[in-house]
C-alpha cells in the first residue's frame, strides 16, 4: 500500500509538472510521495530481518501469543494537561506579550520532565 501511494504521488506530481510547470503543487505532490516511501523503506529494512508476526499469520491462535509483552500501559497521567497549558501559554505570549513566555516555557519544561520521569518509572 505504501509503495502504491508513493508511486501515485510521484507519478501524479510528475504529470502535474509537465502539464502546468507550477512549482508549488508539484513540490506538494512529490513531498506527499515521500512519506509513504519512508514508511515502506522502514518496513523493507526491518521486515526483512523480522519473522512474520503472529498478527499477520492467518492461522495463528491467541494462545501462541500468551506471555508476549505488548508494552507498558500507564493508568493515568496529569502531565499531558500541564504540557498543553504550557504550550497555550507560550502561544499566547506571542500574541499578548513576551512577558508570558518564561511562564509558558517553564510550565512546558516541567511537563516534559514529568512525562520523562513518568515513562521511566
Amino acid at each position, binding site marked *: *500500500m505504501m509503495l*502504491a*501511494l508513493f508511486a*501515485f*504521488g510521484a507519478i*501524479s506530481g510528475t*504529470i*502535474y509538472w509537465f*502539464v*502546468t510547470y*507550477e512549482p*508549488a*503543487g508539484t513540490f*506538494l*505532490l512529490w*513531498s*506527499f510521495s515521500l*512519506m*509513504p516511501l519512508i514508511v515502506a523503506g522502514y518496513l523493507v529494512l526491518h521486515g526483512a530481518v523480522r519473522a512474520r508476526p*503472529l*498478527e*499477520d*499469520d*492467518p*492461522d*495463528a*491462535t*491467541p*494462545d*501462541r*501469543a500468551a506471555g508476549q509483552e*505488548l*508494552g507498558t*500501559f*500507564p*493508568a*493515568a*497521567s*496529569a*502531565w*499531558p*494537561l500541564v*504540557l*498543553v*497549558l504550557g*504550550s*497555550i501559554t507560550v*502561544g*499566547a505570549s*506571542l*500574541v*499578548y506579550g513576551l512577558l508570558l513566555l518564561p511562564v509558558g516555557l517553564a510550565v512546558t519544561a516541567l511537563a516534559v520532565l514529568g*512525562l520523562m520521569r*513518568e*515513562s521511566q518509572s
Partner: protein
Amino acid sequence: MSVTLERPVAAQPEEPPRRLGPVERLTSTDHKNIGILYCVTAFGFFLVGGALAGLMRVELAEPARQVVSTQAYNTMFTIHGTVMIFLFVAPFGIGLANYLIPLQIGAPDMAFPRLNLTSYWFFAGAGLLILLSGVASTGGGAAMGWYAYTPLSEMRYSPGVGVDLWILGIALVAISNVMGGVNILTTVFLMRAPGMTMWRLPIFTWNMVVTAILGLVAFPPAVAAFALLFIDRRLGGHAFDPLGGGDPALYQHLFWFLGHPEVYILILPFFGIITEVIPVFSRKPLFGYLGLVLATIAIGALSMGVWAHHMFTTGVVNNPFFSAMSLLIAVPTGVKFFAWTGTMWKGKISFTVPMLFALGFLLNFLIGGVTGVMLASAPIDFHMNDSYFVVAHFHYTIMGGSVFAIFAGIYFWFPKMTGAMLRERLGRVVAVLLFVGFNLTFWPQFVLGLRGFPRRYVSYPPDIGFDTPNLVSTFGYFVMFAGVVLFLADVAVSLRRRVPAGDDPWGGNSLEWVTSSPPPDHNFDALRPIRSERPAFDLRHPELAP
C-alpha cells in the same frame, strides 16, 4: 480448528458500571475513557457550532439585517465553520477510533496511551483558543472565513488578535491530529491480535488507517502556511502579502493541500461506521470487502491530488488536471455505494435507529456526491463558486453524510460504551426530525445558489427570489434543533433509567461485540481464534465459520 480459549463471559452487569471521578476522568489514559472524552467534547463543540448556525439562520430568515452586526455575522460564520470541521466532525472520528480500534483488533489499549491523552488535551486547548478567537479578542474576532485567505487575514485587513488566536488554535489541532495519526497507525500495525491480519480488519479500522495517513501528510503543509501567516502578521514577513512581493495563491495552495484531504478526513471514518452498520442490520455479510478497502485507499490517494479545484476561479491553476482528478474520485466512491447496496440487496433489513441514520446518510451523501461531481467541472464551478450551491453541497456531504453517520454510530455503539440501550422509539423520532429538518434546511440552499445568492452575505434585498428559500431553510433548522434536543433527552433518560444492553444487542460482526458492555480494563479476558473479518459472527455461528 483448534479452540484454545474460552469465549469471554457474556455477563450482564447487574450494577451500572463504575463511574470515574472527575480527576480520574480527565487524567485516565485508558483508550475507552479518552475516546469518550473526545466524543463528548466534540459533541459539545457541535452544540456551539449549531447555535451559531441558528443565529445565522435567524438573521437570514428575512431580507435586510435584523439581529447581528455585519462584523458579528462574519465572526459567526468563521467560528461556525472552524468549529464544525476541526473541533466536531474530525475529532469525533478520532474519538470513535480511540474507543473502537483496540477493541476491533483485539488489543488492550492504544500503542501510546500518554500520547493519546496529550492529543486529546491539545484538541481541547485548540477548541478553547478557537472559541476565544471569536469572542475575547481586542480589535475584533476572527472574521475572515474558515480558510483564512490572504490578504484578508493579513494584519492590514484583520488587525485584531482574533486571527492570531485562531492560527494558534489550528496549529494545536494539527499537532493533535499528527499525534493521533501516529498512535492509530502504530496500534493497527503492531498491536493486532494473533490471526487479525490486515485483510481481516474491520472496515472502520481500515478507514481510520487511511484517515490517519491523510492527516500525517496533509497537516504539515498547512501548519507551514499558518506559521508563515503568523510571521506575516506579527513579525513583518511578506510571504503572502502581495504589496510586499508575497503570493496569496501560494497560501491557497498550502491551505487546500490540507483543506481538501481534510474533507476526506471528515468523511472516511464515517464511511467506516456505515459499513459496520449496514451488514449487521441487513443480516448479511459485507458485500465486496476487498473492493471497499481498495476504494478507501484510492479515495485517500486521489484526495491528495485535487486540492486546487477550490482554486478554479483564481486563474493560476491548471483546471483540466484538477477537474479530471476530482471526477476520478467518483469511481471509488461509486464502488462503496455499490458495495453498500449489494450488502442490503436481498438482506433481511431491520429498520433500527442506526440503520435509519445509515439510510439517511446514503440518500444525503448521494446528493452531496452528485453535486460534488457537478462542481468538479470547472465551467459549472465558475458559475457556482462562492454561492449557496457550494454551501448546500458541502453540508449535504458533511452534515447529511458525516453527521448522520455520527448519529448512526452513537446509536450503534452507545450500548457497548455504557452498557445501556438508547430508547428505540425516541431514536426513530430523532432520525425523522433530523432527516426532514436537514433537507428542509439545505435543499432550499441549492435553489438559492442557482438563483445567485452569494455565501457569507448577512442580508439581501426582498422580492428577488431569495425570501422564501431562506425562510424555509430557517424553519428546517428549527426542526433539526428539535431533533437534537430530543436526542440529548434520549441520552439523559437512557443513562438514568438504564435498559441493560447485554454484550451484543445487535448481533454484531467485529470483535468489540464479544467482550462485555462496557468492556473491562484492557478489553478482553480471553480471545478466541480469529478466522475471518467477522469474528463475533463466527463465535455465534461456529457451524458457518471458515
